[in-house]
């Protein structure tokens, strides 16, 4: 009976592999060799540079690269040359943690921009905090990252080295709920999430506010982000009689989900957070995506006067990939680190002090400047003080801003 036991082994392997999926780590480009005169300061980047979410990740990397190039060109910090070291986390928490360890080990790294995913941030925060290395995320929206796991009742900052330029789900979910209920006049929602930290958190804050406003949640569903077949879910949505779908998750699943829901005959808009605010969402969702909505942090980058320069410079550098949803925030995150380094260097007679990392983390708290996305500064939890959000809708195959505003409790 040899083959039968072989089948048993392989079946077990298969089941294990289903949960693990392909892992591995691939180094991004960049590097940390110091060359030329003066001091070299490396700004680390951690983002998914390959795989499903690479469109967002590469936008982050390029924007940080642009900030670094701008600082070097302007000689923003006298005697200091900035470099980036971009590592690929493949949207896997284990890779993220490895990258964090690697960045900590490089003594020239004084700040890190990233990651994209909230669940990866969870795996990195402690590594960075133990090394006193400042981390600024352009995209994490989970409230617990800055306000502790009991953020709804008792806010407590877990890591003093973690900052973000993005607004939290605690604001984004309710903001979407208000728009859907008050402006789009939808009363019956079907809530779907992907069970990840980001998606589930967003879906929960949306549902709570939607119910508070008087709306009805007619069904909930959690999808498996590894598959592309959502036909069974789409059929459930159709028969639930919902007039809108809220999806907490990211565009690689949201695109096909939107498409399959409409194909199943439920002609209702899909609403999501900044994780679906990507041109790739429209590409994957196809022609029926028209009318789908996404909230994203900040005012539309293209409309801010401060952002015009960023957009122009980004184009001039000739990056192959678009800056995507987080480009402006990534630029501002990198620039915040550069500002903090400048302050530390200025306070120390133009040289980097011995405990540069701790000093930079300290200086970060007081950083304040006019960035691409508006005024950039951080509150006592490390959250951005800029709480602006924008609703975008799909029209003629592109995201168009529908409404900007700030959410007030």
């Amino acid at each position, binding site marked *: 009976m*040899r*083959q039968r036991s072989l089948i048993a082994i392989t079946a077990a392997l298969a089941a294990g592999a289903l949960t693990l999926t392909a892992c591995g780590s691939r180094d991004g480009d960049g590097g940390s060799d110091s060359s030329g005169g003066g001091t070299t300061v490396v700004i680390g980047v951690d983002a998914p540079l390959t795989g499903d979410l690479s*469109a967002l990740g590469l936008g982050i990397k390029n924007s940080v690269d642009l900030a670094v190039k701008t600082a070097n060109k302007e000689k923003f910090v006298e005697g200091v040359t900035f470099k980036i070291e971009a590592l690929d986390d493949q949207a896997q928490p284990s890779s993220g943690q490895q990258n964090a360890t690697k960045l900590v080990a490089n003594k020239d790294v004084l700040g890190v921009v990233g990651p994209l995913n909230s669940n990866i941030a969870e795996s990195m925060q402690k590594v960075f905090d133990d090394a006193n290395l400042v981390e600024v995320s352009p995209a994490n929206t989970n409230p617990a990252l800055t306000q502790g796991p009991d953020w709804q009742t008792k806010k407590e900052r877990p890591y003093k080295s973690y900052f973000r330029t993005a607004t939290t789900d605690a604001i984004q979910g309710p903001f979407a709920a208000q728009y859907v209920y008050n402006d789009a006049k939808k009363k019956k929602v079907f809530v779907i999430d992907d069970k990840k930290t980001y998606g589930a958190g967003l879906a929960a804050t949306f549902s709570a506010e939607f119910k508070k406003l008087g709306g009805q949640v007619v069904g909930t569903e959690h999808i498996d982000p590894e598959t592309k077949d959502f036909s069974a879910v789409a059929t459930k949505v159709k028969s639930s009689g919902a007039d809108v779908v809220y999806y907490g998750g990211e565009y690689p699943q949201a695109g096909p989900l939107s498409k399959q829901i409409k194909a199943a005959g439920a002609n209702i808009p899909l609403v999501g957070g900044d994780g679906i605010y990507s041109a790739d969402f429209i590409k994957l969702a196809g022609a029926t995506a028209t009318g789908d909505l996404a909230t994203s942090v900040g005012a539309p980058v293209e409309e801010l006067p401060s952002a015009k320069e960023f957009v122009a410079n980004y184009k001039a550098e000739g990056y192959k990939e678009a800056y995507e949803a987080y480009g402006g925030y990534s630029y501002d995150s990198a620039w915040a680190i550069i500002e903090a380094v400048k302050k530390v260097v200025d306070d120390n007679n133009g040289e980097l002090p011995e405990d540069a990392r701790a000093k930079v983390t300290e200086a970060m708290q007081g950083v304040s400047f006019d960035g691409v996305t508006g005024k950039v500064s951080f509150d006592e939890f490390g959250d951005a003080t800029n709480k602006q959000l924008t609703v975008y809708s799909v029209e003629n195959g592109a995201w168009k801003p529908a409404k900007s505003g700030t959410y007030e409790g």
Partner: protein
Amino acid sequence: MNELPQQLVNGLLLGSMYGLVAIGYTMVYGIVQLINFAHGEIFMVGGFGALTVYLYVLPDGTSLWVALPLMLIGGIIVAILVAVGAERFAYRPLRTAPRLAPLITAIGLSLALQQAVWAWYPDARSAITFPQIDGGPFEIGSVTIQTGDIFLLVAAPISMAILAYFVMKTRTGRGMQATAQDPDTAKLMGINTDRIIVVAFALGAAFAAVGAVAYGLKYGEVQFRMGFILGLKAFTAAVLGGIGNIYGAMLGGLVLGVAEALSTAYISDIPGMDQFGSQSWANVWAFVLLILVLLFRPQGLLGERVADRA
């Protein structure tokens, strides 16, 4: 609204795709007792082959009705070339090695193929859109069938019929059966077993390519990782139906697809089972089903034809 008919159709469509891919696992296993874990990637390169024909070979704006047969042929050719190449250079040198050696080789080949497409196919680092059939969905009673699913609906039964005819009626097909029963005796009777093995790989690859084109049309995209999970599901389907049995592969696929659709739709309605019913639990229920079937029928639903060779 009663959603049962629609959910059954959803499950059968998904299951047909599993079945098409499962045939490749089961045929290769039936003949050389190798679980070809790279078969999911053969499926993937089939999809990319078809896409290449559409994007780079045919002139822009070619009607999909003209393009589809050519894409299908292109996908099949690419899949067969990769599968036969893998057999010749990766598996054949290991034919007499212990069983685990080719198994590990297959896993390595699977990763290598994924990474090769990731690295060298233009824009393959994220999903690439696949051409879509125009036109609205068809309504049959309360059941909606997408235009993209029509291909699968037609191709799966035709593929099965062709395969059954081939295996039962042709000389090569009977040679395959003989090799599956006893390769040494088959060789003594004048069957070129090396050729038969190549044919088994090629046939499996061709069906996987048909499945990949169906996947592209159904979901509107192909990507370098698409064969990984689907390959595992297809392997599960092959075991469920009875590995080594081609009808079992198809049946296993259908059962698995329906089980996933129904568990997504109905388990959450059972009182107290609310949190186990969402689609993220569909895999769990699929494997529960597999375990149950293997407990009571270790040979799979239709039984393995080659059980006597253990």
